[in-house]
């Protein structure tokens, strides 16, 4: 009998099947790794188990007994605890207050029994072998220590199953060692763990089995000792490329953008690359590899610590997005809602925002001119709107993305940075975005596309920069692009011999 069994789980969101017919098992004292590309369905599966999402179909069994998990509280009652990447702790409370949050102990007068809670917390902390006291205020702890508090919280709740989502993503190598020691302890106590990480080496070190997900489906489960990195990579990416990439060779010789030894606030590794006229330069890598940060730095939205940027051969000093716009740069940001659109305003308002000068002057709004500007973009990009004054918030994801694109195209930029341009939009809208990209480059526009989707990188890019952990690990030509190669460099730890040979 397994500790946990998830059978034929299916979860759909409007328009998307996020998880389809996935089954996993977990035994006592076992660590199961979940592996897959971004969007493969790992998070959704975990959220179903944690009661955040309710499943459409399937069954969850704990100790062989079918459970209903409809809310996070249900999950906790069943002994399932999740440690999310973003820790859920109150920074201004003490360790013991955090551990007992929501189920505080009380004394016989009905008041909080602070002493007993601290003793209990201390006992757990001691058993985990950590050095900070239960009375410490959380704010004073390091991220690794906070993570330990999360683990202590799970233990104090008598969790049988602990799920860890990218627990090492913000830890130093020393702290990772300590976490692994902890995981070893939990294993010996019979706790089952589900471990999500992109760092392949870690899986081989601490996991027992690995289940690989791809496009919401389970590709297979392997015992970790009987598999190897290459096999797992090909399992992760092994899908056939679709035909919807429209791609002509529009690259001209002229270099329009050159970045030399640029160091952003987010990473100590300098980045150097160039972009030619009419080229689509891809930036591949895993989420958190530092690509978005690099792009924001180039666009002036984040501080440049050192390095130079040249546009058409001239050095430029871009300190703000408005500087970047003045140099004919455009940026379609990763976070469409937060950084791209004024959601509670109209399509027209959003599209015309960058060219106000063209139709507002001398205390007069040339409404016809504005309408013409907006209509032209709506026609060019085939944006499906009910009218110019439809609220942006009411559009589909694909159309919202097109509105963002339209806004930038009103200025006919020469260089467009697109960060995850097709994230969260449906297949047909994706294809439309690709064909727009192709026609833009045909007109001499150059594009940098940051994407975590390998097929899209391979389908659309002339050259690809691969980044890993804040550093560039490879620059690949179109003819050399395969999912395996890209994944290989995306998983490479910067500074290793192999990396130096290829970069």
């Amino acid at each position, binding site marked *: 009998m397994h500790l946990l069994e998830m059978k034929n789980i299916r979860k759909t969101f409007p328009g998307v099947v996020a998880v389809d017919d996935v089954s996993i098992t977990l035994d006592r004292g076992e660590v199961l790794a979940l592996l897959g590309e971004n969007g493969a369905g790992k998070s959704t599966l975990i959220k179903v188990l944690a009661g955040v999402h309710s499943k459409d179909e399937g069954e969850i069994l704990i100790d062989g007994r079918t459970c209903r998990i409809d809310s996070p509280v249900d999950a906790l009652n069943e002994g399932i605890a999740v440690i999310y990447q973003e820790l859920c702790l109150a920074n201004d409370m003490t360790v013991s207050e955090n551990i007992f949050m929501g189920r505080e102990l009380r004394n016989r007068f009905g008041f909080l029994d602070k002493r007993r809670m601290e003793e209990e917390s201390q006992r757990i902390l001691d058993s985990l072998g950590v050095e900070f006291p239960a009375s410490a205020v959380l704010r004073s702890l390091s991220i690794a220590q906070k993570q330990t508090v999360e683990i202590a919280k799970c233990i104090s709740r008598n969790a049988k199953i602990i799920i860890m989502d990218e627990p090492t993503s913000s830890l130093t190598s020393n702290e990772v060692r300590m976490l692994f020691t902890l995981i070893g302890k939990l294993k010996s106590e019979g706790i089952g763990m589900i471990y999500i990480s992109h760092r392949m080496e870690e899986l081989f070190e601490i996991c027992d089995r690995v289940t690989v997900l791809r496009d919401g489906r389970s590709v297979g489960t392997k015992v970790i000792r009987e598999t190897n990195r290459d096999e797992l990579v090909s399992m992760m990416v092994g899908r056939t490329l679709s035909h919807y990439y429209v791609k002509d060779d529009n690259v001209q010789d002229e270099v329009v953008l050159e970045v030399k030894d640029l160091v952003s606030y987010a990473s100590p590794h300098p980045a150097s690359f160039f972009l030619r006229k009419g080229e689509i330069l891809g930036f591949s890598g895993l989420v958190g590899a530092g690509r978005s940060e690099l792009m924001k730095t180039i*666009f002036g939205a984040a501080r440049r610590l050192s390095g130079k940027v040249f546009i058409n051969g001239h050095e430029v000093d871009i300190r703000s997005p*408005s500087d970047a716009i003045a140099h004919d740069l455009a940026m379609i940001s990763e976070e469409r809602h937060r*950084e791209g659109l004024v959601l509670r305003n109209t399509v027209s308002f959003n599209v015309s925002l960058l060219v106000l000068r063209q139709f507002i002057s001398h205390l007069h709004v040339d409404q016809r001119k504005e309408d013409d500007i907006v209509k032209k973009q709506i026609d060019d990009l085939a944006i499906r709107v009910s009218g110019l*004054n439809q*609220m942006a918030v*009411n559009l589909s994801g694909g159309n919202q993305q097109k509105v963002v694109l339209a806004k930038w195209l009103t200025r006919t930029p020469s260089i467009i940075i697109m960060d995850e341009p097709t994230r969260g939009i449906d297949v047909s809208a994706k294809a439309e975005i690709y064909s727009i990209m192709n026609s833009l480059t045909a007109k001499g526009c150059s594009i940098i596309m940051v994407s975590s989707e390998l097929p899209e990188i391979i389908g659309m890019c002339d050259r690809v920069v691969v980044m890993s952990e804040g550093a560039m690990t490879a620059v690949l030509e179109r003819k050399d692009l395969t999912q395996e190669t890209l994944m290989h460099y995306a998983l490479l730890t910067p500074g290793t011999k192999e990396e130096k040979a290829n970069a």
Partner: protein
Amino acid sequence: MPETKRILKSLKTRFKDYLGLLLGFVLLCLLFTLLSSRFLTTTNILNVLRQIAVNAILAYGMTFVMLSGGIDLSIGSMVSFASIFCAYLISNLGMPVYLVVLLALLIGGALGLVNGIIISKTGIWPFIVTLATSLIFGGLAYAISNGTPVRVMNETFNVIGTGSLGPVSFPVIYMFVLLILCYVILQKTRLGRQVYAVGGNPEAAYFSGINILKVRLVTYTICAVLASFTGIFLTARMYTGQPTLGSTMVNDAIASTVVGGTSMAGGKGRIVGTLIGAMLIGVISNGMNLLGLSSYLQDIVKGFIILGAVYIDTVSTRKLEQKA
């Protein structure tokens, strides 16, 4: 021909925004007309308009600030400051009226600039910043006058508040002139668009190359200049500078703005709505006065109206976002 059609259509869409508000306003007027024979008379209407002017002009400023995603609790203190400043300089120092008025507006604007700079540079919430500066500005007014009212009798100065054009007193004219001015700034200039963009989504505005700092500074400055102007004409009208003059005014200004449909979250609202909001609140006070109802009761009614208006705004926002 298509031009007239377009204008008609745009009028229709404009009108639609205010439909509920106007309906409420008309119903309320109808109610008071039925209940009191003195309500719908020329004298009373002119009277109400004059009473509304102060609140409306303050609310215009508040609308700018709230549209850009902020709030300004210090406008009452700015009214008091301008009041004492003018009265003191004219009466006690004998300075020329035009210079004093100009100085009062300039210094008032500077106070708004200070609010904007602190808010933008420290990242402290506007609510807290202006709560604090409200104490500072109000304290300054007390300090100048030693806490006592300052009488100001000066023909040139007093006419700013007491003058009239035919039967229409100056404050009412200010109210409508400033309405047009504010409308033009918000709807007919690039700055106006930028105010809506910054309030609607500061991050998106930043990535679109909009100078957020500039937009915020301008809105707080406009708000402050309007508050100072209110302080000036009110002082002229009352022949007295008072350090407590504006102490209760901020509530009604926020209420009018919100009732007029401006969102506390920023990015949504119109200046005409604010005027209607101010008229609604003014008419409630006036009508209840005519009926001989106590001012406590008026507060209770106003409170419910504000809750109702904000609730409608919240529900419609939620509906919008759920569709997303």
